[in-house]
């Protein structure tokens, strides 16, 4: 199967080598009404990670019908990893196509940076979206994505906070800092593990631990350089190797992704799990996948936080429709419905002080979750994300110096 696919890709590549590579960073000069009329009748394919049933249901049952009212058909394409969407775009770009399959991607961090590096995103459009007026233009989470300037190449969708999650029925005296978590792991061998990077969640756990081992996020420069990496990471790898024997299956293997980790937690094999989208916990507890005693573990020093975005590939033909959907996704109504823990529970990117009185009141009426504290509580002492160049370097280093060593 894979061989066939790569062969076909090969032919496409060979035949496309001579084709000029289209420039992507063109400015969008159309006015908003023009974009709206162009968008009518277009079909927008939104490629997004499909591992979250609530997110899938929100897009299918709330966002897509709203887009249809504006004359745009929104089609959700689930992927196992955002890298798949990015790879599709890169292949289409290499083949010189301008009518690509991907119109909108839920993206952030290293995937966004890789796209920027390959000139694969349409840029200069998101700052012109009418609903951007409800966001804070100085919010660092929205102007920079893992240290990369957003520059109008993607529009914000949600905010997220990395959180550790524990079963309060099993852990009666939960640790309060990351160092205490490490002590707890060693005192309770076999009850903790993390997904193997490059899984998104496993990767952020390693970054969080880099902060801990380095004595706080202040000591890790956000921009990447090899020297700092070589200086800071040996202590991190050493700590993780020392930790390995206390992990699930003695750290000889790791769950391949956060879904596998959550399953181990749900089956009671682990006492802790972790997520970059704590919003989904409420639903997981309500439907009985996670025990009712599931709680978020607040850490004194705070955890890593970020925002995720919607980006339009340079190869998309239906970019007017994609812009319309991105603007719609940013509207106070959509952001409020999405923030409801019964719907998806994703934290809003809007600045509530910029909303109209009615919209603000609607946001205030959102129900509280028994499992997850509000974003303001979660994001207290939030740690910044590292520049995206750190991510693959840390992922690769982890495989080489932790995974391959502890066998």
């Amino acid at each position: 199967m894979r061989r066939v696919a790569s062969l076909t890709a090969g032919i496409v590549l060979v035949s496309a080598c001579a084709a000029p590579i289209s420039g992507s960073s063109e400015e969008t000069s159309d006015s908003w009404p023009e974009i709206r009329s162009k968008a009518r009748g277009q079909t927008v394919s939104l490629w997004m990670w499909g591992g979250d049933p609530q997110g899938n249901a929100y897009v299918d049952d709330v966002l897509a019908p709203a887009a249809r009212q504006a004359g745009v058909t929104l089609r959700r394409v689930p992927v196992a990893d955002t890298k798949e969407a990015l790879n599709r775009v890169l292949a289409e770009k290499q083949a010189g196509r301008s009518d690509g399959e991907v119109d909108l991607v839920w993206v952030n961090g290293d995937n966004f940076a890789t796209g920027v590096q390959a000139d694969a995103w349409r840029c200069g459009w998101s700052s012109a979206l009418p609903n951007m007026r409800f966001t804070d233009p100085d919010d660092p989470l929205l102007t920079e994505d893992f240290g990369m300037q957003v520059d109008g190449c993607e529009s914000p969708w949600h905010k997220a906070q990395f959180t550790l999650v524990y079963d309060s029925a099993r852990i009666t005296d939960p640790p309060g800092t990351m160092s205490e978590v490490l002590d707890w792991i060693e005192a309770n061998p076999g009850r903790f593990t993390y997904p193997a990077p490059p899984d998104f969640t496993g990767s952020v756990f390693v970054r969080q631990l880099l902060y801990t081992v380095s004595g706080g996020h202040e000591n890790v420069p956000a921009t990447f350089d090899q020297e700092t990496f070589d200086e800071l990471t040996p202590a991190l790898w050493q700590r993780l190797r020392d930790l390995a024997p206390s992990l699930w299956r003695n750290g000889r293997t790791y769950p391949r992704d956060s879904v596998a980790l959550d399953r181990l937690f749900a089956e009671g094999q682990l006492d802790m799990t972790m997520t970059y989208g704590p919003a989904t916990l409420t639903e997981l507890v309500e439907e009985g996948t996670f025990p009712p005693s599931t709680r978020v573990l607040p850490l004194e020093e705070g955890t890593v936080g970020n925002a995720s975005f919607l980006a339009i590939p340079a190869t998309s033909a239906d970019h007017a429709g994609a812009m319309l959907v991105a603007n719609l996704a940013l509207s106070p109504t959509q952001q409020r419905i999405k923030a409801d823990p019964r719907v998806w529970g994703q934290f809003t990117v809007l600045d509530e002080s910029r909303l109209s009185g009615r919209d603000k009141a609607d946001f205030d009426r959102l129900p509280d979750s028994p499992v997850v504290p509000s974003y303001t509580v979660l994001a207290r002492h939030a740690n910044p994300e590292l520049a995206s160049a750190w991510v693959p370097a840390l992922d690769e280093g982890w495989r080489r110096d932790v995974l391959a060593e502890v066998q």
Partner: protein
Amino acid sequence: MDRRGAVLVAPAVVAVLFVLGAGLGSAVLQSVGLIPLVGDPALQFTGYVGEREVLAAVGLSLLIASASTSVAALVGLSTALLLVGSGRGRRMLAALVTASIPVPHLVGAASVGLLLSDSGLMSRWLGVPAQAWPSLVAGAWPTAVIFEYAWKESAFVALVVSASLASRLPDYQETAALLGARPWARFRHVALPLATPALLAASAIAFVYTLGSYEVAWLLGAAYPEPLPVLSYRLFTSTDLTARPDAMAVAVMTTVIAGSVALTALALLRRTAAWR
């Protein structure tokens, strides 16, 4: 070979060569850095310099492919002999074999995962707690991966071998029996030589397929080491665009190993008595 035959197969050969040549050619070019995704082309062979991870992948891939092919050949041959024999339950066996063939590997792998994992059906049926259950799925040894391939490929081997035996074996067996051959001698001197070409060909196909297949090892295997296709795909989808040549180098190596195995099998096949 007569010339007419050569002319007749020419279109097929040209098409295959074009597809293979274009695909492999571009894979080789990418693997040595001549078609980079970003930056300028520059000849480099870093992907081929045996890193520990690549060597581990080669070892694991060969282990999975040879173990599962051996089991499949053994089980497949025995099943085929039962199928063309006159024993009871032949229909039932034939139905089982036929039913296994169209099950996609992905479905097979998911089912094996549900059956053999820590808190899977087997551990629950047998009342073994998850902590005490052996790590068959994603453990140090690729047990579940080999089990899945062996199961699927043994059905394939059985089908191919029984098809090649069905028309000939019963008569020969009968003659041999009339001449006084005992069951073991009938197997050793009649059934086995007749089955060898089909068995060899089917095993070679199973081996090469297993070597290049991705989804079963991805679902049921451990995070480290990874077999060649899983390693190649992880590098291919890495957000580090400069890892592309390494991914292609692993793919090219996989192709070379698969190609040599296929050629060896072909050479062996030509030597078997029943081939001529």
